[in-house]
């Protein structure tokens, strides 16, 4: 690895897969997949805990607590943000830096609005139902599972914004392409976890 890695790549140049063109890139790619494997166990443990403690010790049960309208909108927003990050990576593979930044920007906006809605949702539960982290085992489990996901969204946003700002002036190169790529992998993972939260926590919560 050397200075040639820092040369800005332009559309029409090779390689087609800049994220895997170097050994460092390949290592990052594989290592990050493994990391996501570990994260899967982490969330699986949280899901297991949540299912064991659902409705336990709480005055307001899940069925009464949750409304699907807001959560549905949040789901659509987050799923869309995954799509926009796919567009960003598509443009990265064509070495079109500007379009990639644009689509990542849209991804960040969608992610931030998801996070805003989630904070509103939590506020709503706390104020309307006194459903808090310390009110019951159900509350602890709910806020821990959904909050861990929210924390991941926040970290992902900070990560992508840092990448975008850091590289705004110098464009895409073989050094930062793997960084963009694994950040997008992380974003997809967050999205997949949310699909499970939507199903296990909210949909299954509603049907009892």
């Amino acid at each position, binding site marked *: 690895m050397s200075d040639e890695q*820092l040369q800005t790549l332009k559309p029409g140049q090779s390689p087609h897969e800049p994220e895997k063109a170097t050994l460092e890139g390949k290592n990052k790619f594989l290592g990050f997949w*493994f990391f996501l494997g570990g994260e899967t*166990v982490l969330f699986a443990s949280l899901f297991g805990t949540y299912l064991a403690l659902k409705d336990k*010790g709480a005055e307001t049960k899940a069925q009464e607590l949750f409304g699907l309208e807001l959560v549905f909108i949040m789901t659509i927003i987050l799923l869309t943000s995954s799509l926009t990050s796919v567009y960003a990576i598509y443009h990265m593979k064509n070495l079109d830096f500007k379009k990639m930044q644009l689509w990542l920007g849209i991804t960040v906006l969608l992610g931030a609005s998801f996070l805003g809605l989630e904070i509103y949702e939590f506020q709503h539960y706390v104020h309307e139902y006194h459903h808090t982290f310390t009110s019951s085992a159900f509350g602890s489990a709910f806020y821990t599972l959904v909050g861990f996901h929210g924390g991941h969204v926040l970290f992902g946003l900070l990560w992508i914004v840092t990448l975008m700002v850091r590289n705004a002036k110098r464009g895409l190169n073989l050094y930062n392409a793997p960084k963009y790529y694994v950040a997008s992998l992380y974003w997809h993972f967050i999205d997949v976890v949310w699909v499970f939260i939507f199903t296990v926590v909210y949909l299954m919560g509603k049907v009892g």
Partner: protein
Amino acid sequence: MSTATAQKQGFGATLWDYLTTVDHKKIAILYLVSGGIFFLAGGLEALLIRIQLMVPDNNFVSSGMYNQLITMHGTTMIFLAAMPFIFALMNIAVPLQIGARDVAFPFLNSLGFWLFFFGGVLLNLSWFTGAPDAGWTAYAPLSTTSPGHGMDFYVLGLQISGAGTLIGGINFLVTIINMRAPGMTYMRMPLFTWTALVTSVLILFAFPALTVGLFLMMFDRLFGAGFFDPTMGGNHVIWEHLFWIFGHPEVYILVLPIFGLFSDIISTFSKKRLFGYSAMVFATVLIGFLGFMVWAHHMFTTGLGPIANSIFAIATMAIAVPTGIKIFNWLFTMWGGVIRMTAAMLWTVAFIPSFTLGGFTGVMLAAAAADFQYHDTYFVVAHFHYVIVGGVVFGVFAGLHYWWPKMFGKILDEKLGKLAFWPFFIGFHLTFFIQHFLGLMGMPRRYWVFHSGDGLDLGNLISTIGAFFMTLGTLIFLYNVIITSIKGEKASADPWDARTLEWSIPSPPPFYNFKQTPLVRGLDPLWVEKRQGNGKMTPAEPLGDIHMPNNSFIPFMISLGSFVMGYGLIYQVDDSRWLFVAIAGLLITLGSMFVRSVKDDLGYHIHKEDLEEKGAGSE
């Protein structure tokens, strides 16, 4: 960097070098030294436990202090001694065995070490204010209601060091998959590398369960959550599950690499190719897989019901099959071989019957109905010390004797090595064999005293005498380390007439390991060249520039930040101003990560001309 140049540096420069190093060989030394210190601390705790239990109704330590001693002994030995020893051996051997110049992520390697180190230091600082006292398994509600901050130190200390271990696991996975030299196919990898691979998979999938368990306990103890509090609807069995979903694979995380290094050692010192190589690989993978299916055998008496108990009992017994395959393959490797009884081989040969005894009692414990009798007695204590000491500790001693020349360029004194072995080996069986019977006679574990007239006096006295023998063995080994470093015999590249790639380069290796990446032509590549070639590895590439990573102080800062944050979180329950300390720690960590993210770190090149100058000496 060879030791010769290191000696020329001042102390400050050397210290800075180790604080910032990303070289896997130096990180191995860091793991070894810190693991060694924690091992001595844990050993001292064990000695105090045995002194307390030397005679009936003893008052050597108070009951509260006894609880702290047993908790810290178990926690220290598993997380802060055995784990770093495993990582020390993996760091020194794995990259060299696959013909790599370093691990896949040198920076993360350093980060993993410093997180482990600061987690361990945090945990041990609890001694000043009251150590954890709910047992190393920290069952709720005992742990969640334990007064003082001891258990908070347990939770935060293990959380931080666990993060380091996870990072290390991912690092070795990618290293072994992506960084192998040309020709080093999976089925040509030395068994130690294979077991390191499977262990890394286990780390990856087991540690996050502990992470979650520790988070839940932290939320319960420090932030008023109700996961394990039945009055809030909580359920303490969740902790047992999470802990053992991590805890059982952890046993295999520790012992698999040891199996691997025994395979390498037996093959080397029997001058024979490992018997049943592919069966050994298969058994390793199978043990790794089954290791995840058996956690509830620690919970037979929890009340999961007969169906669950039966399933987990059968799965547990099944593990005896691949383990048996290994035992027989080791024996068959030695059979007909030209055996050299070096110190490393002595530990290895002693391991086989000792560990097998632990395996037998394991199958006994797996019988769920019988386990109701054994549960929480000294029978269990005897069992797991037979597998952990008879397996892991013997293995670490063997591995240190074997790879010491590669780590430090000197051979540990063989005579002293054998002199250390005998008291340790005899002491080990004195200490723990009798405990089987103490357990069967009904002596419960974790009790502060036993009474005279219960018929437990003689057994406990023998056990304590054994502990002193083990201490003597350890001290002789330490003396050996010191005397070797002062006037030890300089090691050649291949002092054992060995078979694998790490012995094809000088001891200690140059900091770039391989001047030219070797071409691997078969299993036991160096042996292949010794028999069919000129005894030297054929290079797979022309001499060229070598790319090396830069040293970095950032891993130390990230870990320091999490240490500060841990301290703040522990004490914010007493005074909310400690929250600022926690936030300061978080900012140090995130800030260091930010710096790492925005600063380009491209490494540097060693030029071909410089390599040629060093020429003859280093190959």
